């Protein structure tokens, strides 16, 4: 059984083929890195897996369950969480409320028009724990707009982890961070338990290499090279595409 199985997935925008018959298999507990130059179709692949976009062709399976036709919101309930490359959080809400909203998304409580949200201990307590996990519990009651970019990046990860996903998709978690912040985030990502399968997109290979066990290189919407870390880095096609050698 694989955690994620993508078969001949194809998506084009107008005449532009962004995902060209991609095959991808990720084993449970694996740490997979997807690299590729700008425009390789990395984020589009994530959007197809999470259901934000519908593929033109192909199939997606999560733990052997076909989810190709499952709407995006339901895929979150099946265990897919993601972070965004361009941070999309709720700027006027506190950090705690941001993470609470993430937990509420998977709870039947989200339809309740009568309860008091800030008194729902079964949401607020785990939300505080998730913030503690990323080292932000001291900022729990601060509005998100008053936090730094690096802190927001960690809120993103806290929100994703709070949902206890089976499959976690990280879209360039290091983008725009300082060296110090990168180290913090890397440590955080490395500490994710093995019952979570992690797929990470990263443009900057240097930071992400330590994290990856297997690497997939995307180029112009196609899988060009795939394999173990060492093999992929040494592969002449990787060198050619990525390092322009």
């Amino acid at each position, binding site marked *: 059984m694989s955690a994620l199985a993508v078969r001949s997935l194809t998506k084009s925008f107008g005449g532009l083929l962004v995902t060209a018959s991609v095959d991808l298999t990720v084993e449970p507990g694996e740490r997979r890195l997807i690299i590729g130059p700008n425009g390789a179709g990395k984020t589009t692949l994530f959007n197809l897996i*999470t*259901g*934000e976009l519908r593929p033109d062709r192909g199939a997606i399976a999560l733990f052997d369950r076909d989810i190709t036709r499952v*709407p*995006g*919101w*339901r895929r*979150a*309930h099946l265990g897919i*969480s*993601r972070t*965004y490359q361009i941070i*999309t*959080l*709720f*700027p*006027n809400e506190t950090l705690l*409320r941001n993470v*609470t*909203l*993430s937990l*509420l*998304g*998977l*709870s039947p*409580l*989200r*339809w*309740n*028009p*009568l*309860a*008091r*949200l*800030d008194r*729902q201990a079964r*949401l607020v307590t785990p939300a505080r724990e998730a913030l503690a996990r990323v*080292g932000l519990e*001291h*900022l729990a009651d601060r509005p998100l707009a008053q*936090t*730094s970019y690096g*802190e927001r990046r960690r809120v993103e990860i806290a*929100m994703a982890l709070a*949902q206890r996903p089976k499959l976690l998709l990280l879209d360039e978690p290091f983008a725009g961070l300082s060296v110090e912040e990168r180290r913090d985030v890397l440590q955080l990502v490395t500490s994710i338990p093995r019952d979570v399968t992690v797929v990470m997109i990263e443009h900057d290979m240097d930071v992400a290499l330590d994290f990856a066990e297997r690497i997939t290189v995307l180029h112009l919407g196609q899988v060009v090279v795939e394999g173990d870390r060492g093999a992929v880095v040494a592969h002449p096609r990787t060198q050619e595409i990525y390092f322009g050698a």
Partner: protein
Amino acid sequence: MRYLALAAALLLLGTLPLWAGGIYYVNIASQILFYAVFALAINVLVGYAGLVTLGHAGLFGIAAYTGAQLLNGGHGHAAIAVGALAATLAAAALFAVLALRGTGIGFVMITLAIGQIVWGVAYRWISLTNGDNGVSISGRPSPLGLSLASPASFYWATLGVFLVAIASMAVFVASPFGASVRGTRDQPRRMAALGYHVWLIRFLAFLLSGFWTGVAGLLYLYYNQFVSPQAVSLTASAEALLMVISGGSATLLGPVAGAALVVIMKSVASAYIERWNFVLGAIFVAIVIFVPEGMVPGAVRLGSRALALGRPRVPAALPAADGEARR
């Protein structure tokens, strides 16, 4: 302090017919209250769901027309209330399915079109709506044997409905569902990725809005004992939207303040100034310039600034560097 202010407001509102100084002012207060219910209903969509509607007078009118026709058909007042609200909810569901095919400007245009269709029916389908002449009813209801014929008793009944409406809004805003609705306003894509069914949340918000619009429409019918295409017109929709925006959308008291402003300008100012529309327009321009967030949040902002100026200046402590606290 907060409870004290609330108690004082309730006392003032509850005793209004005793000190308002005449039937005329009691009636204006009643109008403010049912328009406030209407504005609160629109605020659910415009303020909390971020969906601007220009067709809500259509729903308002459907409630009023259905109520009027049922009453003239000889039905009792309880049956009328249930029937009119059911019809409004059904219409709201249909409107929502159509309008929610778009968001942003698309949503505005579809609601505008639907509102105009309802207006067309009210104006042209004479066998159903009596066209331009409108429909009259023979009297106000007497729930539990209490007559609402007098201005004061109608005011108290309207006040009761208004208080239930605003209390239900307060509960809704603080609820998980309220947070879901605001989330779909701020980050719809993210909400879907978090597991929220964005379309269904918006649909239910539309129904909630439709329900209170129907209640307001019924109160309007009972107050005027008459409904005509004017109540369904685009002007009526725009006026109600202006109530929400001028008072402060996505706040509890903003729509109420906006309703008070518009009703007072329409009723009181028009007695003194013939071109009262001009005055209303000037006030809206002033609101946009000085308190673009609306009268209520704007007053809060200006008030707290005035308070801060009154106090002796204390050098603001430097905010603790978060990076330091972490280590």
